[in-house]
């Protein structure tokens, strides 16, 4: 083995890959060669570092120098200055550091300081396509431990004692679920992994599969031992090509090393797994629908009971957990249930990964102890709302969740506290909204989503979501009445009570939640025919202030509808009959003469 004095880690997550990280890797290869350093420095493609807003990210070890927004043309500087001469390239440092002029390691930045990375422990650290790197970080040690030192019941007890709850959304105690699945006997039993991450705005499962796929494989093997199964399936979204590719590589490497297959660790234990691709249906994240889909059918949910533990995939006893839940398991086995339970709150133990998105400076993935207040996530870790705008609300749990308004920003993020205010932890999507977002429009956005994604099997969901969407459409187009708001509330209750699966039952949540905290916005749309945030087009009009207009003609030239008339150096005006309310004139005007009302 060559002595390597420097490791150059390049993020290979979806976000950074989209902004040219593969080209950056190639360029490093070329530049290292040009400077004769190819034997001294090694380039490693890793999973996601989490701070996607700063991507593409390059980290140079042993210093731990954190370079942001790296472009292929910057690589030469990093090699000729940093790698060759030991001088840090200051212009590429993380913005917090650029101001102070000193480089800190990744762990010391505000973004990472308050995080506790258990699920994401290897993401951005190891090369996910090389099993030896996973093994070097204690990989497959937990599997060895359970197979050689623990009985299946001891494994289940350990998971129970950790207090881990399902991270896919419902928060059901994981150990309990394993206990049920172990309790049903059968010649064939299945262990499944739900990687059909459908909540738009949540991408932690993708990140784990891209950055640390072996942790999921190891956990599934442990689960299989605990419940007595020999066959596993991972159901993963086809929209995640990088995750699928790395997972498949990881499975074949695990087979090669004898961690999957027959007689694992010489204990006689046998387990193998296959990958099944989802085909873009949100409802398939529901456990029974997911299994129907693996069976090759339309992914429609089945009534429960019987629960999957009794009759699941192909009618056999089945255990199903989500990616993030599994990724915790090897850590819990290696470090002990008590170490895991030490994080979090009394009923919500451990950590949770949240996907920060929307109007927030540090978009990306953060893993925090359960019970961390929203304020800390938004202001400290997330770096606040950009462009001097005001924080309005955070939407959690996607289409099945609700919003947390600015007045409740101190809410601890855990199962109980979030449920108490009408939101959910859900899969961990956390979309930040500022004053420019209309809450009625957001509710409509989610209802359009659930309406499209309703599988159509039960009528409360199929028809109900359509009716609710129509009412929201009516309100946002300025034709709503106060009775419509009452109807919305009544429909919401019926749909929640009568739908077959979680999709329908939770579909009204975004409406109920926005009605609870932003009722005045609904009323403004209905009574005043006004959209306070200036989003709903039908309720907007654009006007040119004659005293501010210099007659520069920029607006008229850019108007796609030809709605603006006027002569050079004379005040212009907008013809409301022709205006399509696209807002281009407002964007283009340099004199603040165009107003939206």
């Amino acid at each position, binding site marked *: 083995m060559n002595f390597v004095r420097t490791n150059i880690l390049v993020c290979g997550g*979806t*976000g950074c890959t*989209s*902004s040219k990280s593969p080209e950056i890797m190639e360029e490093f290869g070329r530049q290292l060669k040009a400077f004769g350093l190819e034997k001294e420095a090694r380039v490693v493609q890793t999973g996601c570092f989490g701070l*996607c*807003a700063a*991507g593409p990210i390059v980290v140079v070890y042993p210093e731990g120098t954190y370079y942001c927004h790296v472009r292929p043309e910057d690589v030469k500087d990093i090699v000729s200055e940093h790698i060759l001469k030991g001088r840090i390239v200051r212009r590429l440092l993380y913005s917090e550091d650029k101001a102070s002029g000193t480089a800190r390691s990744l762990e010391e930045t505000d973004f990472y300081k308050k995080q506790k990375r258990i699920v994401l422990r290897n993401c951005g650290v190891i090369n996910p396509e090389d099993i030896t790197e996973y093994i070097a970080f204690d990989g497959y040690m937990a599997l060895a431990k359970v197979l050689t030192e623990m009985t299946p019941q001891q494994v289940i007890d350990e998971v129970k004692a950790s207090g881990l709850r399902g991270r896919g959304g419902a928060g059901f105690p994981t150990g309990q679920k394993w206990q049920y699945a172990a309790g049903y006997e059968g010649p064939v039993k299945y262990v499944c992994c739900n990687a059909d*991450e*459908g*909540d*738009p*705005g*949540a*991408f932690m499962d*993708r990140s784990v599969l891209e950055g640390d796929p072996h942790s999921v494989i190891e956990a599934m093997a442990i689960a299989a031992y605990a419940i007595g199964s020999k066959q596993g399936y991972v159901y993963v979204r*086809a*929209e*995640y090509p990088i995750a699928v590719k790395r997972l498949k590589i990881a499975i074949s490497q695990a087979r090669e090393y004898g961690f999957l297959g027959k007689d694992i660790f010489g204990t006689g234990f046998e387990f193998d797994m296959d990958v*099944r*691709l*989802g*085909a*873009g*249906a*949100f409802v398939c994240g529901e456990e029974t629908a997911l299994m129907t*889909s*693996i*069976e*090759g*059918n*339309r*992914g429609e949910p089945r009534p429960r009971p019987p629960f999957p533990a009794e009759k699941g995939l*192909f009618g056999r006893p089945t255990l199903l957990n989500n990616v993030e839940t599994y990724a915790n398991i090897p850590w819990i086995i290696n470090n002990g249930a008590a170490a895991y339970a030490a994080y979090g709150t009394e009923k919500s133990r451990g950590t949770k990964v949240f*996907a920060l*998105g*929307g*109007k927030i400076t540090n*978009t*990306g993935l953060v893993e925090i102890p359960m019970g961390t207040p929203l304020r800390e996530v938004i202001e400290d870790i997330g770096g606040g709302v950009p462009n001097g705008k005001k924080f309005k609300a955070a*939407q959690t749990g*996607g289409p099945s969740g609700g919003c947390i308004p600015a007045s409740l920003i101190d809410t601890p993020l855990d199962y109980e506290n979030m449920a108490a205010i009408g939101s959910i932890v859900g899969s961990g*999507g956390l*979309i*930040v*909204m500022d004053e420019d*977002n209309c809450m009625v429009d*957001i509710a409509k*956005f*989610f209802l359009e989503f659930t309406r*499209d994604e309703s*599988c159509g099997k039960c009528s409360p969901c199929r028809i109900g979501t359509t009716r609710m969407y129509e009412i929201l459409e009516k309100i946002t187009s300025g034709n709503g009445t106060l009775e419509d708001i009452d109807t919305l509330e009544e429909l919401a209750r019926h749909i929640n009570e009568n739908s077959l699966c979680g999709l329908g039952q939770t579909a009204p949540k975004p409406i109920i939640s926005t009605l609870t905290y932003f009722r005045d916005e609904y009323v403004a749309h209905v009574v005043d025919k006004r959209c306070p945030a200036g989003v709903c087009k039908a309720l907007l009009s654009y006007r040119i202030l004659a005293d501010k207009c210099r007659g520069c003609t920029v607006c008229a030239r850019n108007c*796609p509808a030809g709605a603006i008339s006027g002569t050079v150096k004379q005040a212009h005006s907008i013809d409301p009959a022709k205006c399509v309310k*696209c*807002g*281009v004139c407002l*964007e283009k005007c340099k004199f603040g003469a165009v107003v939206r009302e």
Partner: protein
Amino acid sequence: MPNRKTLVPFRGTREQEERLRAAIERHRGEPGATMPVMQEAQEIYGYLPEEVQIMIAEGLGVPLTEVYGVSSFYAQFTHNPKGEVQISVCLGTACYVKGSGAILERVCRKTGCKAGEITPDGKFSVDATRCVGACGLAPVMIVNGDVYGRIVPDNVDAIIDGYLDGKK
């Protein structure tokens, strides 16, 4: 999303048909084989017209209604071909709150194509997609597989122009 039967004539080749038959052979008898075969078929043909659905149904010995049922259920399967310039705008939540609705509108205006459709000349197809997971880059649009992140509506015309006349 509309998934209507296409009006574009089927132009499958013998070579494509052989690849599909081979895929069917490989999966025959496997439990839950319908979807993996359809996924491969879509990779071969780019879409799943009636002709291809019939081949799958007959090949696997399942009713055509079942194949059609599955193909119309999942958003990934499309009954319509894609354009020479294939544009998708992400309408996931993170992109939406950052204004991807306005991006989609500009794309539709530029191409004269509605979301989920293809222009009659086969030049453009536009899709409003679910979250692609690149939320850190929001709002995101994808043209022929190239990802463009953190864009504003004014960038749209220039991006699309870059793909005209066989430039990319």
